[in-house]
């Protein structure tokens, strides 16, 4: 009775259906991130192993064994029929069907379900959910009484409901229990993207090819129906793909890859139940509607934040429902063989669909909830972040290796090593480029370090040079002073000798020597003072100063200078001024400088020294020492530069008036060391007025500390 062509066709179809495992494997692993790709692929392979074993052990028996009141089969366990070729072929064909139903789940739960938990899900589905429901619909196909849904007249030709909805509803229950992937619905619009869409697309195409066997083989014979079934299958897939693509254009304005892929699968799923009963135009229509259902289903899931990693539930469960109902809508009533009217058939179809949902979804949802308590279905947060390839299988990819190496560098903060470059790969190119960037950054860092080092070095050198200069000047001044002291000392000694012996020869010459020596000494003292100020060695000795005696003594001291140019000196001390705290030596030196300058640049005039006290702008009482002359005056443009070293109002004045050009510099520096200042007003031809302001509130105990502060002194010499 058995036709060998039928056997051959069934076995070829079985092989085609098994190729769907490859299709699913590519599709699902391409749609996930690289860090989970191997995990998804391995789940696809392992679930087939599990379901094949289980199906042989007892699944097939439950589904196609002699029926127990239409509820489940009770024989044909561990099938080992040696003589019945047809039954063996049928078993093979059904075994790969079961594998298909199970492998749908792996895509939906991808990237987060624990591998071991997934194997149990596969075991549970292939051992209980699938064979029981299968018996209700298909029981009796291989002989014996039909299942209870079949006896009601429920029609599902190749398994829109039996295979695809079952896989879809189990997936739905699973993703509700385990929840969405980390990062899928958090924050930005940017969703998790598949790492290899080319692979996924290839997988979808392989699925399509396999589907020809899935539907075509479901006749279980090579008969006249097969070509139409295959045509309808192709049309369903094609129209499903087109309509979903159109939806994507309408909604996103872009041909989304997932849209066309899921549209094709949805179309294929929907025609699976009815392809033997409908016309080609009807198949096109069924596929078209399925494409829309699939597209909208995915949108709906996103809105409700239900994370189906590959869109398995809309494509398999929703489209499976639609295809099963389409049997009653588009099927040729005379071909149903149930004897029912269209509406009655529709109700039966609806019953089957609802029973499938209730049985599959509720059972598996409860099972997963309980199971999840005992052993978590989901990997830990860290494992999920690391990726299931590594955390579940210790399997890496070049990309993961590269990222791991980069992360290590980031954590340690050490960039002296370079990452491994896998030759002739894209990841290798990235690694190479990363290394080159590191090289460049390192180069830049070295360059900056070098220039910083140089800048520091030259700064140090400058400081050292200034120190050396100051020390040199201090030492040189000291060394110069000793012989100069001897010269002046001996001149005075000779003068004394000559006075004693009443010898007057060379007295003028000796005076000239003495005068020049004194000038040189003043110059050296000035240079020494300035170098001490510059090198921070000038000290301040604060004492209480009696103003009137100081001024009187000064007047006495400068009297000879006044007489030189026939000048008159007037001294005014404001009433109430008695004493104040400052550095007496420095004050004296400053006033001497100012008075000597005034005497030098004034002829036949009057020089006035007046002392007054006045609150300055910050409320501190200050003493003002003003030295006013009726001399040649200072041009405006020179009034600041005269305070610089070796500067006089005019270089010719040096020749005419002598002087070291250091006096005002030192005076201002001293005044500033004492928290005061020296200012000048002048009118050319009429005279000048120098005012030294010194605060009266200095604390004598501050003396030592104040000596340490660098005076506000311009860099000179």
């Amino acid at each position, binding site marked *: 009775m058995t036709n060998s062509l039928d056997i051959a066709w069934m076995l070829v179809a079985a092989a085609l259906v098994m190729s769907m495992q490859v299709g699913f494997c590519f599709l699902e692993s391409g749609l996930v991130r690289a860090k989970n790709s191997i995990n998804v692929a391995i789940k696809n392979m392992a679930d087939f192993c599990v379901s094949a074993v289980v199906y042989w052990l007892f699944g097939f028996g439950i589904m196609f064994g002699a029926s127990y009141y239409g509820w489940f089969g009770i024989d044909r366990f561990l099938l080992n029929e040696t003589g019945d070729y047809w039954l063996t072929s049928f078993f093979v064909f059904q075994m790969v069907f079961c594998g298909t139903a199970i492998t749908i789940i792996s895509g939906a739960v991808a990237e987060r379900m624990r591998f071991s938990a997934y194997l149990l899900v596969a075991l549970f589905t292939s051992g209980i959910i699938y064979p029981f429901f299968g018996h209700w619909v298909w029981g009796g196909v291989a002989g014996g009484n039909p299942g209870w849904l079949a006896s009601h007249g429920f029609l599902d030709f190749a398994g829109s409901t039996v295979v695809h909805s079952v896989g879809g509803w189990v997936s739905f229950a699973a993703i509700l229990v385990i929840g969405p992937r980390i990062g899928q619905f958090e924050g930005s619009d940017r969703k998790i993207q598949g790492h290899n869409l080319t692979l996924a697309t290839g997988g979808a195409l392989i699925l399509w090819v396999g589907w020809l066997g899935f539907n075509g083989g479901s006749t279980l014979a090579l008969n006249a129906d097969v070509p139409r079934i295959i045509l309808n299958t192709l049309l369903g897939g094609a129209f499903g793909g087109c309509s979903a693509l159109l939806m994507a254009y309408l909604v996103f304005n872009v041909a989304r890859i997932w849209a066309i892929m899921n549209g094709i699968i949805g179309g294929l799923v929907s025609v699976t139940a009815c392809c033997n009963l409908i016309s080609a135009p009807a198949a096109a229509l069924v596929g078209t509607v399925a494409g829309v259902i699939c597209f909208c289903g995915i949108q709906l899931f996103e809105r409700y934040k239900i994370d189906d990693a590959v869109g398995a539930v809309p494509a398999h469960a929703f489209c499976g429902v639609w295809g099963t109902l389409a049997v009653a809508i588009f099927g040729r009533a005379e071909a149903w063989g149930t004897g029912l009217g269209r509406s009655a058939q529709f109700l039966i179809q609806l019953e089957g669909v609802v029973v499938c949902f209730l049985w599959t979804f509720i059972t598996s949802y409860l099972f997963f909830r309980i199971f999840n308590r005992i052993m978590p279905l989901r990997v830990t947060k860290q494992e999920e972040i690391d990726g299931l390839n590594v955390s579940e299988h210790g399997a890496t990819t070049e990309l993961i290796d590269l990222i791991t190496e980069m992360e290590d560098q980031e954590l340690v903060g050490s960039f002296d090593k370079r990452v491994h470059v896998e030759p002739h790969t894209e990841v290798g190119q990235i690694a190479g480029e990363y290394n080159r960037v590191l090289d460049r950054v390192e180069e830049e860092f070295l360059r900056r370090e070098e220039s910083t080092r140089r800048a520091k070095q030259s700064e140090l050198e400058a400081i050292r040079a200034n120190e050396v200069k100051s020390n040199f000047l201090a030492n040189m001044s000291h060394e110069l002073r000793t012989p100069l002291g001897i010269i002046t000392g001996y001149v005075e000694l000779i003068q*004394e000798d000559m006075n004693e012996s009443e010898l007057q020869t060379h007295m003028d010459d000796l005076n000239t020597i003495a005068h020049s020596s004194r000038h040189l000494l003043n110059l050296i003292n000035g240079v020494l003072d300035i170098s001490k100020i510059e090198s921070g*060695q000038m000290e301040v000795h604060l004492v209480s100063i009696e103003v009137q005696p100081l001024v009187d003594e000064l007047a006495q001291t400068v009297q000879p200078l006044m007489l030189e140019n026939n000048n008159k000196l007037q001294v005014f001390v404001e009433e109430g001024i008695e004493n104040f705290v400052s550095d007496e030596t420095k004050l004296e030196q400053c006033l001497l400088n100012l008075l000597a300058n005034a005497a030098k640049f004034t002829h036949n005039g009057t020089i006035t020294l007046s002392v007054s006290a006045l609150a300055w702008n910050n409320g501190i009482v200050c003493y003002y020492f003003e030295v006013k002359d009726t001399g040649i005056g200072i041009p405006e443009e020179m009034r600041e530069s005269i305070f610089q070293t070796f500067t006089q109002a005019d270089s010719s004045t040096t020749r005419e008036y002598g002087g070291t050009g250091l006096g005002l510099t030192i005076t201002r520096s001293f005044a500033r060391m004492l928290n005061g200042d020296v200012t000048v007003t002048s009118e050319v031809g009429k005279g000048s007025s120098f005012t030294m302001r010194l605060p009266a509130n200095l604390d004598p105990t501050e003396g030592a500390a104040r000596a340490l502060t660098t005076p506000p002194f311009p860099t000179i010499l």
Partner: protein
Amino acid sequence: MNTKTALIIEDNAALREMIRRRLIRRGLAIICAVDGESGIEIARKEGVDIILLDMNLPGKNGWDVAQKLKSMENTAIIPIIAITAHAMRGDRERTLQAGCDEYVSKPIDFDMLLEKIAELMAL
């Protein structure tokens, strides 16, 4: 006779000679020492009335000499006038801390030196 004796401890021969001759002219008896060790020795043995001490001596420097002199019983009361280069920071404090009674800086203002000698010996 009531001639007072001054001890000059100074390593620079020209300077030492100049001071010696000018002080002799003022009626002082002068003993000279070229370094600290011999200066201390002389001060201890001879009865001197005042010591002019150069702070910048070879070997044992002026500060050590002053301290030593002020620590010995029979020299402690002899007044010391420090002669310093007036070049380095803190010189003044250090000389006074070391026990010197007065302080003149180089080059020596001779009138001032005489004044100080007179003051110290009058005490």
